[in-house]
């Protein structure tokens, strides 16, 4: 039964009151006595050799306390920023990881790369100081174009041909054989455009050092403070893990870009130790554009082999992925294990082979961005499927149904290394078709045409692998960290509860969702449960929030810890009720003896645990606080059907989304309102990729889209009224039956929009983003 605040209830988010009244506590709101300000001096060159850097003028300026170069950090033993996922090439060799000093030492490789840091008493003085730093550069022609980067002028001494790795997955021979005997082959050349994440809150850091204890504290905009601590301690050598506390307070959006450990927080915490003063840095929006890790940026040749009846027999994909100038923390995994493994989609394609070459260019590093690899995979598969349907004269829904993995096929082992546990893909498609009124589309199209508009419809039936991740699977594939999650459920004397999680909420609403789970299970008021996250000093360990993992992995850890609390409470209750554990029932916060009227409430049990007068001290420790670590058995596989209808203005090329339906299967849902919000946000980002957003470097390597004057962030008036709904096949291997919902919108929607647009125009492909001029030119046949 669903209570008003329990599992399944659309509880309003606890955290929103402080966010929408300006009472949130973000990193830039943190101020310390005697705080200094850091400003980074950034390369204006896409690629240059640093001959010399002169900080003497900066140091002479009023208020400037210090000016550091990369050489200063290196001399102090500060290590390179690492990549945490080892990908191996086809020939078994390790990927090549070029040196990535946090502050450039001898070369700069992208516009915006920091090569010096100035620390001053005021922000103004730090800025003035940064402008006074002079450097002598020898500019070198940059490698910018992804298509020609492989084999172009070598950027890193250690990386021949600029190739990081040449990876493959699947059975090449079987796939080639399938193509050789197929009746039809559909081919597409696809570009997945570069995106710039644009979290509402720019990155920031406040570093502190206490000389008396040698303790460091770093406030930073991180999606995973424990991981930041691990990297800063183990790889960068800032301080011992036990001496470094990392706190990610309220964080205003991440979308992946705040997973990674960057130059700035590294330099800030190091310099705080050098100067024994608190130091604050906060990115300007311009710095965010230049120096946050970007997303996507693939070029792909994709082929689908079919029988004449539309049955898929083989899929062959060759992708070149842009890593940017250096390997960011998880960059290597995104176009491989988060991409190639998803190419089966929702279909029984028997033979799949994918090769991915990741290459370096003189652009900002590219890493995970909402969906991370899975939007790219979905785009490849769903554009191919829709195109194949058109080429064979099949209905796009029918061709999908013909090839769907059927409910009785689960667990289903794909040819690309995943085992899907459950799903009902046609259920989602059927519901989406009903909601959009597919049967009446022809009438709407005719009506649009009567108004001088072109109308099209497009489908996208996506799948994602979420709930990152089963640790041993991930580690066997190259991950440098486990991907379990921890939780602690700490019951207070009075029965209120604090829940410590290693996940991090930066917009996801964990304070609400996790409280719903615990209050529901313990039968205590929702208001009595506080969720604590984002502080290595308060929760034991954690791997953070990304990959739609928080509810699935973190939530499962919380369930496990809560179950331990209930188990211990039952023992205490049995003692207090003079019964036995077996005879004590627990329901809605009350322990009662079976078939009797004797009962005791959860808060009474909690009180007894801390004031153990009537308590079995010979058998049980006092106190009521339990910890759990949860390592998932498998990934989860959210899936769904998105259908989009667009209208195109043939005179201007402007595209309007006139209908959008998303039906998703996220398994069991804790808070439908939060889920709908997550879907809405994801859809805006997926639609943004299709129609609006594009990170563009010019030929010389300068970032053209370095502000909101040129980078088209989606706005509310660019979006239609979404129709979102769900179907449910519960996940089979976690206690909540949940699959995760954070990325689905961004994964499924892009292909639906572009399938609708190409349908409207009657063309095979339009490059993304489909800006008005791009569409106008497509209509002109260019």
């Amino acid at each position: 039964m669903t209570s008003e605040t329990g599992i399944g209830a659309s509880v309003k988010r606890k955290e929103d009151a402080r966010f929408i009244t300006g009472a949130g506590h973000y990193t830039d709101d943190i101020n310390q006595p005697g705080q200094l300000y850091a400003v980074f001096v950034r390369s204006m060159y896409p690629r240059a050799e640093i001959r010399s850097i002169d900080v003497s003028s900066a140091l002479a300026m009023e208020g400037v306390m210090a000016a550091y170069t990369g050489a200063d950090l290196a001399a102090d033993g500060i290590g390179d920023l690492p990549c945490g996922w080892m990908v191996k090439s086809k020939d078994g060799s390790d990927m090549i990881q070029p040196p990535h000093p946090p502050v450039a030492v001898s070369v700069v490789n992208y516009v915006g790369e920091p090569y010096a840091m100035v620390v001053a008493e005021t922000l103004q003085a730090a800025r003035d100081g940064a402008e006074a730093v002079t450097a002598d550069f020898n500019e070198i022609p940059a490698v910018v174009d992804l298509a020609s980067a492989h084999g172009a002028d070598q950027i890193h001494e250690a990386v021949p041909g600029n190739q990081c790795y040449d990876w493959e997955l699947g059975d090449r021979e079987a796939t080639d054989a399938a193509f050789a005997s197929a009746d039809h082959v559909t081919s597409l050349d696809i570009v997945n455009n570069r995106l710039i994440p644009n979290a509402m809150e720019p990155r920031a850091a406040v570093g502190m050092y206490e000389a008396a204890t040698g303790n460091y504290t770093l406030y930073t905009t991180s999606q995973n403070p424990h991981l930041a601590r691990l990297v800063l301690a183990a790889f960068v050598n800032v301080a011992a893990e036990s001496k470094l506390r990392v706190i990610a307070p309220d964080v205003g959006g991440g979308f992946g870009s705040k997973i990674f450990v960057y130059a700035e927080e590294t330099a800030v915490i190091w310099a705080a130790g050098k100067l024994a003063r608190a130091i604050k840095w906060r990115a300007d929006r311009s710095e965010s554009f230049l120096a946050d890790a970007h997303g996507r940026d693939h070029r792909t040749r994709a082929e689908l082999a079919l029988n004449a009846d539309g049955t898929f027999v083989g899929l062959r994909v060759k992708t070149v992925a842009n890593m940017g100038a250096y390997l960011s923390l998880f960059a290597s995994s995104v176009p491989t294990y988060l991409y190639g493994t998803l190419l089966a989609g929702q279909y029984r394609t028997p033979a799949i082979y994918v090769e991915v070459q990741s290459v370096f260019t003189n652009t900002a590093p590219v890493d995970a961005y909402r969906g991370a690899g899975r939007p790219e995979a979905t785009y490849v598969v769903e554009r191919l499927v829709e195109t194949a349907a058109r080429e064979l004269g099949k209905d796009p829904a029918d061709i999908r149904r013909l090839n769907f993995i059927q409910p009785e096929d689960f667990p289903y082992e794909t040819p690309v290394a995943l085992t899907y546990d459950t799903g009902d893909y046609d259920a989602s498609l059927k519901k989406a078709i009903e909601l959009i009124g597919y049967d009446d589309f022809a009438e709407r199209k005719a009506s649009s045409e009567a108004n001088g508009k072109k109308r099209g419809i497009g489908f996208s039936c996506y799948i994602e692998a979420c709930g990152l991740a089963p640790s041993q699977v991930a580690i066997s594939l190259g991950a440098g960290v486990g991907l379990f999650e921890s939780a602690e459920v700490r019951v207070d004397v009075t029965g209120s509860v604090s829940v410590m999680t290693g996940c991090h909420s930066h917009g996801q609403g964990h304070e609400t969702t996790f409280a719903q789970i615990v209050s529901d299970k313990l039968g205590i008021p929702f208001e009595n449960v506080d969720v604590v996250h984002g502080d290595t000093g308060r929760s034991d360990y954690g791997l953070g929030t990304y990959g739609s993992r928080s509810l699935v992995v973190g939530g499962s850890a919380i369930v496990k810890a809560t179950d331990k609390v209930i188990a211990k409470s039952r023992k205490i209750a049995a003692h207090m009720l003079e019964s036995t554990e077996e005879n004590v029932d627990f329901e809605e916060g009350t322990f009662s003896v079976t078939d009797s009227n004797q009962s005791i409430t959860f808060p009474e049990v909690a009180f007894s645990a801390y004031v153990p007068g009537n308590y079995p001290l010979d058998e049980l420790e006092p106190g009521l606080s339990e910890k759990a670590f949860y390592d998932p058995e498998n990934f989860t596989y959210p899936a769904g059907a998105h259908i989009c209808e667009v209208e195109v203005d043939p005179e201007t090329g402007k595209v309007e989304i006139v209908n959008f339906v998303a039906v998703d299967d996220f398994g069991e849902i804790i808070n439908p309102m939060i889920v709908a919000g997550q879907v809405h946000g994801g859809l805006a980002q997926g639609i943004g990729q299709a129609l609006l957003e594009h990170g563009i470097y010019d030929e010389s390597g300068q970032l053209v889209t370095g502000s909101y004057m040129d980078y088209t962030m989606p706005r509310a008036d660019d979006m239609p009224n979404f129709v979102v709904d769900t179907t449910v096949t519960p996940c089979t291997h976690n206690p909540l039956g949940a699959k995760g919902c954070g990325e689905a919108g961004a994964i499924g929607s892009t292909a639906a929009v572009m399938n609708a647009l190409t349908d409207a125009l009657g063309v095979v492909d339009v490059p993304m983003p489909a800006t008005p001029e791009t569409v106008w030119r497509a209509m002109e046949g260019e």
Partner: protein
Amino acid sequence: MYRFNYHKPDDMAAAQQMMADAEDGVYLSGGMTLIPTLKARLASPTDVIDLSGLALSGIELADDSLTIGALTLHSEVAAGNEILSLSNLALAIGDAQVRNRGTIGGSIANSDPGADYPAAVVALGATINTTAGAIDADDYFQGLFETALKPGAIVTSVTFPLPGRAAYEKFPNPASRYAVVGVMVAETNGDVRVGVTGAGPCAYRQRNFEQALADNFSVAALDGLEVDYTEFNSDIHASAEYRGHLVGVMARRAVAQII
């Protein structure tokens, strides 16, 4: 920002004196361009002279014209007046925050190539009143961020003759919402004028459109007319050629509104 001296004069003479005295002064009106420029350290004036203390705000109706004070906010023009097309134009500027700070005088003095007001100034044949005399619309816009405004002079108001009919159509930049192309078509006392903003370095009149419409005020009159786009702006959002195409589309849509 860099350091600068801030002044807030309360009369026109003082403002101009402060400008004369400044080594490198700049007037601040709504600040919708100047403030972001200063914040990004892209400008380093020695003195910023804030005009907001001057009595230059308000909309005044005469028999055959509307005079809008230079400090009148976009939102105030958008709120409605005798020239509906001008209200509609103001309502299409930026967003609510910009409309509540930005001023007509600031927009016209700055002459951003993507600003909306210049199309109306040109199409309605407005007069720009300044502390150094009145300037005819046709003489005012001279190039990219260049106007006939004399050094140190201040725009005090803009006088728009009341048109018989007029309409503005804008194709906004999807990122900035400035005009990629904005076209105002107006007929005032039998005189047809077509003002174009966004397309070129500054607002201008599309004379071949004007002639065609003077002969036959209809959408069809514009069919097939050439737009010379060789000097047009070109960027990642719109090539010069596409802008040239849009001038025709926006002009036809503006005409369609008022026939």
